[in-house]
């Protein structure tokens, strides 16, 4: 074999499985071995169940032996962010609140993966309830960046990005509310795709901010991202916000669109602030690459960019304050042992004081504040109106261009602890990613180079439900470079 099994792509592995040159059980064993080999350093997993994973792999082999494979994902280990419900498995959201919670049901995306034979592998670390950009807000562990163990992997899908980068899973699922797939993908040198809002069902994704959350793939190459996105997409009648739109065949579309001369926009507001930081160099080179392909590169304007972070933190925290009210010490969460029994609300106050970490408390209280009596119009309603303006910015830009190119993050992965004491500066590290969530458009991060030995991501933003175009654009770059075959030394 030309490279280690654990760094092979899903499509390569799928072929080996199909030709019976590899069994799913052996693939799973190799994945388990790799996971154990590096997990002390990476710390991507909250938990995993070897016996269960091997049983799933065994069932996959049995299907193939009987000539009834469920398709290209059958037997492929997929790591799952620990905020997606898998029946019978822990669902902790990296919170003490749900430390002992075992889900009694499957998320729709999980149901879809199961029906396609994927082997669900492990529960991947995240910032508590997906609130953060570094995975330092996990109640259980801090995941390390496989490229530099002193650095954060990004967040909130830090465990998903790190596991994919370190070869602990063939691919992983994450969720993205303000950049939580793209930013860690960028920091860990993998491909991360946040689908259009409504493309993938949110049923079974523990909600952070309902109008922003989307589930999406983190993979080591673009084709695998297409494959995994294909598997989880589709309208779901259990999610009222799931959009009734057909799912294209992404791989076919990519094949058809090869060599297409795209018109690509550079939002001037994004490049003005990024100026010439070291992290910008690979992004600018990537842009030159597209120009060299004959793509038209155009400057465009997204005039309300400067207001996106403020808008986002009002909307996201307001929704979160309500979404997280259910974690209350009553039905299934951590319940404080000691509380004032004479004060009927103290069981809530004490259980939540013990169960929530600092960042969650901060955001829940901020969200409670912006919705509270007398402030709704000034904050929440205002933010919803600005959200309209931000959406319109994109609509206007997409009249001129097919997609936008931007950096994914202002800097490469920073050192652990560096921003922990300054939440606002942490929030500002999301400036390039959050607008896509506010506008509901798809966004993708693609490895495009390094800065100080740390990966840098190129962000591609596209029109609603045009993930196929994002994938095609990314694929052109990936084919002409060898970033997908570069891996951290662990």
């Amino acid at each position, binding site marked *: 074999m030309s490279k280690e099994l654990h760094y092979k792509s899903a499509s390569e592995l799928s072929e080996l499985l199909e030709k019976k040159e590899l069994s799913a059980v052996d693939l799973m064993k190799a994945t388990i071995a790799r996971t154990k080999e590096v997990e002390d350093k990476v710390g991507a997993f909250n938990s995993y169940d070897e016996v269960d994973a091997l049983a799933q792999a065994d069932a996959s082999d049995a299907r193939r032996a009987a000539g009834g494979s469920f398709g290209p994902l059958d037997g492929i280990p997929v790591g799952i962010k620990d905020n997606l419900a898998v029946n019978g498995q822990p669902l902790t959201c990296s919170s003490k609140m749900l430390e002992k919670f075992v889900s009694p049901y499957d998320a729709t995306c999980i149901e879809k993966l199961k029906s396609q034979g994927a082997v669900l592998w492990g529960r991947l670390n995240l910032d508590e309830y997906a609130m953060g950009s570094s995975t330092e807000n996990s109640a259980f562990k801090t995941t390390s960046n496989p490229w530099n163990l002193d650095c954060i992997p990004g967040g909130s899908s830090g465990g998903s990005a790190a596991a994919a980068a370190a070869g602990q899973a063939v691919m992983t699922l994450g969720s993205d509310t303000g950049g939580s797939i793209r930013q860690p993908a960028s920091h860990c040198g993998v491909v991360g795709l946040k689908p259009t809002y409504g493309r993938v069902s949110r049923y079974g994704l523990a909600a952070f*901010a309902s109008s922003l959350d989307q589930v999406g793939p983190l993979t080591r190459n673009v084709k695998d991202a297409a494959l995994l996105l294909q598997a989880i997409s589709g309208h779901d009648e*259990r*999610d009222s916000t799931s959009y009734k739109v057909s799912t294209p065949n992404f791989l076919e579309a990519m094949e058809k669109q090869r060599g297409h001369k795209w018109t690509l926009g550079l939002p001037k507001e994004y490049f003005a602030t990024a100026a010439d930081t070291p992290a910008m160099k690979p992004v600018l080179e990537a842009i030159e690459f597209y120009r060299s392909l004959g793509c038209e590169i155009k400057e465009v304007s997204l005039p309300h960019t400067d207001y996106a972070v403020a808008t986002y933190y009002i909307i996201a925290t*307001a929704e979160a*304050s*309500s979404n997280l009210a259910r974690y209350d010490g009553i039905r299934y969460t951590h319940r404080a042992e000691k509380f004032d029994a004479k004060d009927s609300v103290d069981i809530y106050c004490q259980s939540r004081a013990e169960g929530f970490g600092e960042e969650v408390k901060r955001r829940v209280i901020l969200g409670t504040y912006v919705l509270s009596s007398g402030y709704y119009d000034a904050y929440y309603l205002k933010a919803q109106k600005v959200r309209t303006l931000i959406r319109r910015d994109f609509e206007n830009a997409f009249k001129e261009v097919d997609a936008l190119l931007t950096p994914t993050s202002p800097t490469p992965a920073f050192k652990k602890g560096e921003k922990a004491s300054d939440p606002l500066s942490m929030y500002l590290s999301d400036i390039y990613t959050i607008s896509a969530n506010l506008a509901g458009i798809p966004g993708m991060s693609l490895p495009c180079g390094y800065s100080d030995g740390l990966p840098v991501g190129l962000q591609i933003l596209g029109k609603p439900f045009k993930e196929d175009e994002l994938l095609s654009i990314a694929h052109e770059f990936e084919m002409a470079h060898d970033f997908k075959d570069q891996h951290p030394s662990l």
Partner: protein
Amino acid sequence: MEYEAVIGLEVHVQIKAESKIFSRVRAGYGHEPNTMVDPVVMGLPGALPVMNKAALDGIIKAGLALNCTIPESCKWDRKNYFYPDSPNNYQITQYDQPICDGGFVEIELPGHNRGEMGEHKKIALTRIHLENDVGKLNHFADDSLVDYNRAFTSLMEIVSEPDMRSGEEAFAFLTAIRQTMIYCGISDCDMEKGQMRADANISVRPVGQKELGQKIELKNLNSITGVKNGIEYEIKRQTRELKKGNTIKQATWRWNADLGQTEMMREKEDAHDYRYFPDPDLMPVRIDEDWKTKLQNEIPELPWDKQRRFIEEYDLPFSITSVLVPDRILSDWFEAAAKQEPKLAQAIGNLVANDLLRDLSEAGMSIDTCKITPDTLLGLVKVVDQGIIPKNVANKDVFPEMFKTGETAEEVIERKGLKPDFDEGQVKVWCQEAIDENPKPVQNYKDGNEKSLNALLGPVMKKSKGKANPQLVNKIIRELID
């Protein structure tokens, strides 16, 4: 000084449906605890609500029946508050864009006696909105137990303007809503099963004063009479306080039906801060004319309209309509017979409202299982009308047999030999005999006392062994004397 009460009601009505309002788990009453739950009802991480079309149909129908305006669109909001019976610690409800605006409920106040229609009045509605119900708390000495079966049942909240002035009006208001809901098949409104629950806002002020007095909220009004009694008690209490020169404090009170008095639950703490905001998990609802028309067409003739029509079209006395109309099935049953022979409607109405209802209740049966049909009942009324058998025979001998066996009137008459074995000529002979034997009443009649001829009826009936038709006898006697 004279005082008057000002009362507004908030009425919660469960909408009848197979599944819950935001989840397709079954809805119902009286099941083992926590057997009608799923991820949505338990508020599990990742669970999402999806609207139930039947709940929307139900409330729009209710709105149309209660004269509301149905706006073109409405949306969902979250009302945030922590309570153990609330799985998400927010209720999905409608804050500033309810699905039904305005409207009114026509009520009837008690008349001077049972036979007389009381005053009708319109109580204005503020709105009706849709929301999810919560679970049920069972209280014990040291703790409480939560059952989420009821959680997420479809619930509509009917909010009235402060248009009522007495417990009696509140009673009439609830009665009218209940009848309308049952008529339309929206809810059974069984208060014992919690399908209808009312809270009242009550204040008292000196007559002539424009501003409202300080209101209190009265909860736990678990029956329609509870509403009446609780409100009346509370009006008396507040009036007494005001007369003593005391002020009323804003508070929540509860009606204790066992003790027959109201008791304070809590003084108003800081105003609730519910942090309403649009629910991002649900899409707005648009209601077009086609949808409204379709539902409008499913609404049957409503009780007051039916009552007015029965009185006019069938010349029914109010007392009979007030028995028939509140029950949609019974009144339809009546009309199935009456519309065939409108001139016999009174006789049909009497039989239904008196004999039929009495026998059904004695047998513990409902009209659906009744062996008498509108057609056979009409047959009975007809044989009386044709003079074949007298009314008393029909009521006492024929009707009970028909009720028992399901036979037609003719079959019963035949089987029991109730048909008179004499003809009209024979009746004439008996009548002449009676006139001859009773000269005094005959003379009184001739002197102008109309009623005195009644004294001849008895003797003729005796001669016919009860089989003569009294109407016919009266007619013949008059003919013979005049």
